[in-house]
C-alpha cells in the first residue's frame, strides 16, 4: 500500500486524539515510533491492517465510522495536496473514472515489480451509460473506505449520485463491485 494512506491515517489519529494516541497505535500495531511514511513509497499491507485495527481500538471507533472519518480527512487533504486533479475533472463521474490512474501513479516510483504490483491494478473502472462500475480487489478489503471516499467526491462536486456495493469480497465474492449512478 502506498505510504500516503498510512501518513494520513496517523495525521488523522494525532489531529483528533493527540500524539500519544498516535504512539499508542504505533505500539499496538508494532510500528517503530520513528518510522516515517513517504507518500510515494509502498508499504506492507499487513502493517496497514494492523494500524487500522489498532486505530479502531485506540479511538474506540467502529469500522464504518472510522472509514467515514478517514474518507473525510483524506479528501480534505487531497483537495489541498492535489487540487489540480479536482480541476481536471468536471464532475464526480470524470474524477472517479480517472481515480484508478491516479492511484496507480503512486506506484510509478516503484521499480520493484512485486512492490509495484502491490499498488497497481487494485481498481478497474467501467463507464456504462453514465453509470460508473468499480471493480475493487485487495486483501485489505477497504471497499467501505472507497465508497466513503466516492461519496465525498460526489459531495465535493455537488453531484447527485448513489453509491452501492453489488457484491463484496467480505461475503466471499472474488471482488468487490461498486456501482455509482
Amino acid at each position, binding site marked *: 500500500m502506498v505510504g500516503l494512506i498510512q501518513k494520513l491515517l496517523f495525521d488523522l489519529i494525532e489531529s483528533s486524539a493527540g500524539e500519544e494516541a498516535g504512539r499508542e497505535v504505533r505500539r499496538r500495531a508494532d510500528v517503530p515510533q520513528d518510522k*516515517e511514511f513517504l*507518500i*510515494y513509497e509502498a508499504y506492507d499491507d499487513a502493517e496497514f491492517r494492523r494500524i487500522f485495527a489498532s486505530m479502531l481500538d485506540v479511538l474506540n471507533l467502529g469500522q464504518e465510522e472510522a472509514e467515514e472519518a478517514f474518507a473525510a480527512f483524506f479528501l480534505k487533504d487531497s483537495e489541498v*495536496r*492535489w487540487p489540480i486533479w479536482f480541476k481536471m475533472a468536471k464532475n464526480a463521474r470524470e474524477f472517479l473514472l480517472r481515480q484508478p490512474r491516479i492511484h496507480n*501513479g*503512486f506506484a*510509478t*516510483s516503484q*521499480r520493484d515489480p512485486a512492490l509495484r504490483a502491490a499498488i497497481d491494478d487494485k481498481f478497474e473502472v467501467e463507464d456504462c451509460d453514465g453509470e460508473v462500475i468499480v471493480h475493487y480487489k485487495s486483501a485489505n478489503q477497504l471497499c467501505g473506505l472507497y465508497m466513503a471516499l466516492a461519496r465525498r467526491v460526489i459531495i465535493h462536486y455537488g453531484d447527485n449520485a448513489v453509491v452501492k456495493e453489488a457484491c463484496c469480497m467480505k461475503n466471499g465474492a472474488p471482488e468487490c463491485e461498486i456501482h455509482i449512478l
Partner: protein
Amino acid sequence: MALQSPYSADNQKLHDLVEELADQLCPAVDGQFDFSVKVSSHDESIDKLQMLVNLVLDSASRAVQELRGTKDYTENIIRSMIDMLLVVAPDGNIVTANEATCKLLGYRHQELIGHPASMLFCEEDISGAIRPQEAMLHKPGLPSCLAGEGSSGNVETTLRAKSGEEISVLLSDSTMLDGHGQFGGVVCIARDTTESRRLQAERERFNRVIQQSLNEIYIFDSETLHFVDVNYGARKNLGYSMAELREMTPLSLKPEFTAELFAELVKPLRSRTVQKIQFDTIHQRKNGSQYPVEVHLQLTDDHSPMFVAIILDIAERKAAETLLVEAKAVAESASAAKSDFLANMSHEIRTPMTAILGFAENMLDVEQSDSERLNCVHTIRRNGEYLLCLINDILDLSKIEAGEMVAECRDCHPCRVIAEVASLMRVPAAAKGLLLNIEYTGAIPETIPSDSTRLRQILINLIGNAIKFTETGTIRLVTSLVGSDDKPYLQFDVIDTGRGLTESQANKLFQPFMQADTSTTRKFGGTGLGLTISKRFAELLGGDVVISETELGVGSTFRATVATCRLDGMRMLDDPLSATTVPDAPVSVAQESQSDLQGFRILLVEDNRTNQALIVGMLKKVGADVSVEENGRLALDRVLASMQRTSGGHSQPPFDLILMDMQMPVMDGYKATGALRKEGYTGPIIALTANAMQGDGEECLQAGCDDYATKPIDRKKLIELIRRNAQLCPSQHGTISTGRC
C-alpha cells in the same frame, strides 16, 4: 567544480534536491525512460514532484515500449509476408518495400527505397491516362494499376525485375491517406503468379491429357464408391454422361462383381499392404455391350482417400492372345509336319543313295558282265536323277517360301505347253497301261502373258500325280477359258480314275511339308512337295491349284488356274488340239548331232579335276574344241594374251565361249568375269555354279556372265545352253536369263 549558489541554506537544500532530481532525469536524453527518480527530501512538495516525475517517466516508458512493440509487430508482419508489399509515396517514389519484394525483383532494399515505382512496371502497364492521384504526384508514369482512387482490386499485371525478367503478379493497391486526410500514397500488395500460372497450366495440360486419354480413368470415393470423376475417353466408351456416372459406382459397370467381392478385392489397398492391385474383368456399356478390361486400381494416400482406376480395353489383346494360341498350335503342327517331312526326306535321300552306292560297288566286281554293268549304270543314273529332282524340289519350295520366286511374264503358248506335257507324260502313263487324253472346252487364246516353264511344271506335276495314284483307266487334261472378260482364267482340270482322297487327306494336301498320308510316301514315293510347289506356282501366275472333286475309290479332279489378263484383240484358237504338234518322244542322245558344236572353241575354267574331265568329255563328244584353265587368274591371263594377239593381226577371237566355274582358288569366277569384261572381252561367258539358291544366278549375271548352269551339269541342257548362247555371239550382255539349266 561546484556551481556557486545564490540561495539561502534552506533554499540551497531545496535547490540541491531539484538538481539531484534533474541529474537523475538526464538518461532520458537517450530516449530511455525505463527508470525512476528518487531523492530523500522530507519535503512533501518535493515528494509530490518526485511522484509526478516518476508518473511521467512511467507513462513515457510505457508509450515507448508500446511503440516499439507496435513497430516490431508491424515489421514482423511485413517481413514475414510472402507477398510483395510496396508503399509508394505521393511523389511516386518507393518508401517501403518488404523482403519479398527485394527477393522477387532482385533489388537490394536501398535500390528500391527513394526510387520511382514506375521502374518496376512494364511499359504496357503505364497508362497514358492520368488519374487525379497522378496529377498530385506529378508522376504521369505511375503505373495505371496504381492510379485509381480507393482500391483497384486485384489486377493481373507484370513487374520487371532488376534482371529485366518480366514477372507476372496479381496486384492489389489501395490509396493511403496521411494524418491530415490528404493523399498519402499507395499501398500495393502483389503476389507472384508465375508459379501458380505454371502450375495452373500444368494442371490444365495434365487434365487435358487425362481427359483425352483413350484409356479409361475413374476416380471414385473410397467410402461410397460413387464416381467423382471419369475421363472423357471412359465416358465416350461407356456411353454415360458425367451426371449419370456421379450417381453410379464402378460396380454398376461390372456385371461380374458384387459389393462383397469388391470389398474383399480392395482389402489389401485399404490396409495399405499393397499400393496397387491389378485384375481382369468385364465392363458393361450403357447399351449393354460388354468388353474385357484390365484394371489397375490404387487408393490415394491423403486426408480424403479416393480410388483411382486406370482401365485398359483388352479386347484386342484377348483376340491377339487367342490368335497367338492358334498360331502356336499351327506352328507346332507345322513343326511336327517338318519333322515328318525330314524323316521322309531322310528316307527318300537314303533310298536312291543306297542304290547308287550299292550298284557302284557292284561295278567294281571284275566278274560282272557288260550287260550287268550297263544295268548298274542305268540304275545309278536313274537314282541320281531322282536325287537331283528331289533337291530341285526342295530348292524351289525354299525359294517360294522365302518369297524369292518370281514368275516371268512373256508370251506363253498354252496349247504348245499342253502338247509338250502330253508328249512327255504319255510315256509313264503308257508304262502303267493308262491313257492320257487332252481335251479342250471352247476356244483357247493362242498366247497369254505368263510363264511357260512354271505352267509346264504345274501340269507335269498334276498329271504325274494322277498317273502315280491311278492303277487303271484314263487320265484327262481338260482345258477351258473361264472367268469374266475383266478377269479371265485358263482352267486345267486333271481328272483321274484313281484312289481318290478322304476329306481329311484333301484338307492337308497343300500344306508345305505335309502329305495326305505319310505312309503313302513310302508306298508311292515322291517328295510330297509337288502339289505345294504347284499351288505356289499357280498363285505366282495369278491362279490357284485346288481339288475340284474327289471321291475315295472313284478318282479326283485337280484343278489348276492361271490368269490370262484381258484378251481384247488376242487371237483365239477354235481348235486348239490340232493347232499344235509336238513330237511324242523326247530327243534321244542318239539323235543328237555329233557335230552340234563341231569346231566350237570353248575355254573351260574349272578347278575340280573330275568336273574338268566330265565336262570336257561331254563337249568333245559333240565336237567342241575345249581348252582348260584351273582358276580365274590363269584364264584371265590366257584370254588377255589371246586378245592381244588378236588385236595384233589375228583375225579370230581367242574363244567362242567361256564356261566359268564361279568358286575357284586364286581368283574366283566372279572376279575373273568382271576383269574380262573390264578388259573388253565381249564373248559369251556361261557361269557354272553349285549354288542353286535364288539370287545366285542373278549374281552371276551381274558379274558379267551371259547365262548360268547349275551343277550337277545336265549334259543336254548344257549343250543347249551353249548352242543358244553361241547363236547370240557376239555376246549381248544384259539379255534376260531363261532360267537355270
